[in-house]
């Protein structure tokens, strides 16, 4: 399994398209920093204009941590797309290129192959999320310096400097779990397709539709919302409350893990029985 995973990782990182995500993240983070650099104080003033009448805000509130928190919001749509470009291609790309004909005529177990590809997808996803976090925090601190973190989540939460880094670490960790779920979904769709574009577009379409259902407060969707993966894509926000609701965190983690398990099982079952006709 280790050898198969190593081969899959080699194949991922030998392709130019795998680096699009890193370039895009650099651009997104730099643009965000520039936006905050020029408009950050005005934005903060706007958000705190009512509070400013009752409270006195002191210190460097437009700081590296605040920018890093803003960047976390890209875990909703931008980062999933960047990950799916690679993970959605893992099986469909081989079918499209015809390489299954030389690969699967070797003594390789198909379930092992799917497992190796998913592990490789997880490693790639982890690298992307870690890169996003490290690049964002490093650049943020270099440009804006340190300070307390002000977060608007149903109110204002201000975290002292010493209480921030562990929250980011866990938030990015949870972000990785969300992205791993999306990677599993894209791998499932990839196993059913013979071209790379289909799984990428379909995964994004599913995320967009499910996100709409998750965010729309309509009675008709209330019953299914708790079971949609998109309901938990922003669960990293739970770590930016003073009192972290561990029950909610646990539920979100379990639901996402269940999604991963189901997506993986269906992928393995389907791919193991699939006729390779391409």
């Amino acid at each position: 399994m280790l050898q198969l995973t190593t081969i899959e990782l080699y194949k991922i990182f030998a392709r130019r398209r795998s680096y699009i995500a890193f370039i895009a993240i650099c651009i997104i983070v730099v643009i965000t920093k520039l936006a905050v650099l020029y408009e950050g104080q005005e934005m903060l003033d706007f958000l705190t204009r009512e509070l400013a009448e009752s409270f006195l805000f002191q210190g460097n509130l437009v700081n590296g941590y605040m920018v890093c928190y803003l960047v976390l919001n890209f875990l909703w749509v931008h980062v999933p797309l960047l990950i799916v470009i690679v993970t959605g291609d893992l099986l469909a790309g081989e079918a499209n290129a015809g390489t299954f004909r030389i690969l699967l005529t070797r003594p390789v177990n198909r379930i092992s192959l799917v497992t190796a590809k998913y592990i490789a997808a997880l490693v790639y996803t982890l690298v992307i999320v870690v890169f996003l976090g490290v690049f964002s925090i490093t650049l943020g601190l270099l440009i804006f310096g340190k300070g307390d973190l002000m977060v608007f989540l149903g109110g204002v939460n201000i975290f002292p400097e010493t209480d921030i880094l562990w929250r980011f670490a866990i938030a990015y960790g949870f972000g990785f779990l969300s992205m791993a779920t999306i990677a599993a979904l894209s791998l499932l769709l990839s196993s059913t397709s013979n071209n790379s574009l289909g799984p990428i577009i379909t995964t994004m379409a599913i995320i967009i539709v499910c996100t709409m259902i998750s965010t729309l407060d309509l009675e008709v969707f209330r019953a299914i919302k708790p079971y949609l993966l998109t309901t938990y894509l922003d669960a990293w926000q739970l770590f930016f409350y003073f009192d972290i609701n561990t029950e909610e965190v646990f539920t979100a983690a379990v639901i996402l893990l269940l999604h991963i398990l189901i997506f993986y099982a269906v992928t393995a079952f389907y791919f193991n029985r699939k006729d390779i006709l391409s």
Partner: protein
Amino acid sequence: MAQGRERTISIRSLSKRLKDIQAVDHLSLDVFRGDVYGFLGPNGSGKSTTIRMMLSLVRPDKGSIEIFGLPLQHHCKQVLGRIGALIEKPDFYEYLSAYKNLELLSFYAGKAAASGRIEEVLELVGLRERAMSKVKTFSRGMKQRLGIAQALLNDPDLLVLDEPGIGLDPAGVKDMRELIRYLNTALKKTIFLSSHQLNEIEQVSTRMIIIDKGRAIVEGAVDELLQQHHFHTRFQLNDPQRAIRLIKESNFEIISAEIDGPALKVFCKRELVPTINKYLNDNGVMIEAIEQYQRLEDYFLTIT
């Protein structure tokens, strides 16, 4: 000829339906150790589907496949470890070099091929000089040769080659034919060879099968099939119209007859030719020349 020899491939009543088409229909065949087995059939006859089932790429609906005496369904890994395959046009990881492709593929087989082995197979197919070039820079013929190299990588006992001559220039086709002969005679590989280039099959195969609509039409030793059955005779004569009318009025056991310019082409058993010659002469048709053809291509075209 095949009696008493060890069976390398044994297929029984193999069937597969793809959507609305019965791609393979109760196909049975035997390939013996040391054979160069020709697998012939027109487009859409079920050749590729059969080969894919033999290599576990496609699941059969019915029937059984035994390779090296082992049921493929239960010993897939063990069996595939002893097979080298080239199916249709070979596709590789274009963004990697030829050498890296072979190295990765050897890892998939569970054991890394020694660099010496990779160089050896590249040398065998004439690609050693281009080992470090990315596959995307290769011509179709070079990819085809790399396809042969990957099939040979793990020193297989059985080679399954699907249209190995496609994309090769005439010199490449000749080299391929010689390579197949060398692999069969010198390295004792059993070869299952599917091809549309029937003259290639005719020249290298020891046994063959012709299939159509997924069914076996005839199977046997190439020489025997050519000798005992039908072949094609071209009678060059003065009045082809009259000759064909006479042939059709006769009771000769011929397969078909057709006018071919100033000649009459007759598909029939070899021993019938003198009788037809005399019959036409006796009926006033002047025969200027008789040419006999027993190429497999004619036989193949007649049957399918």
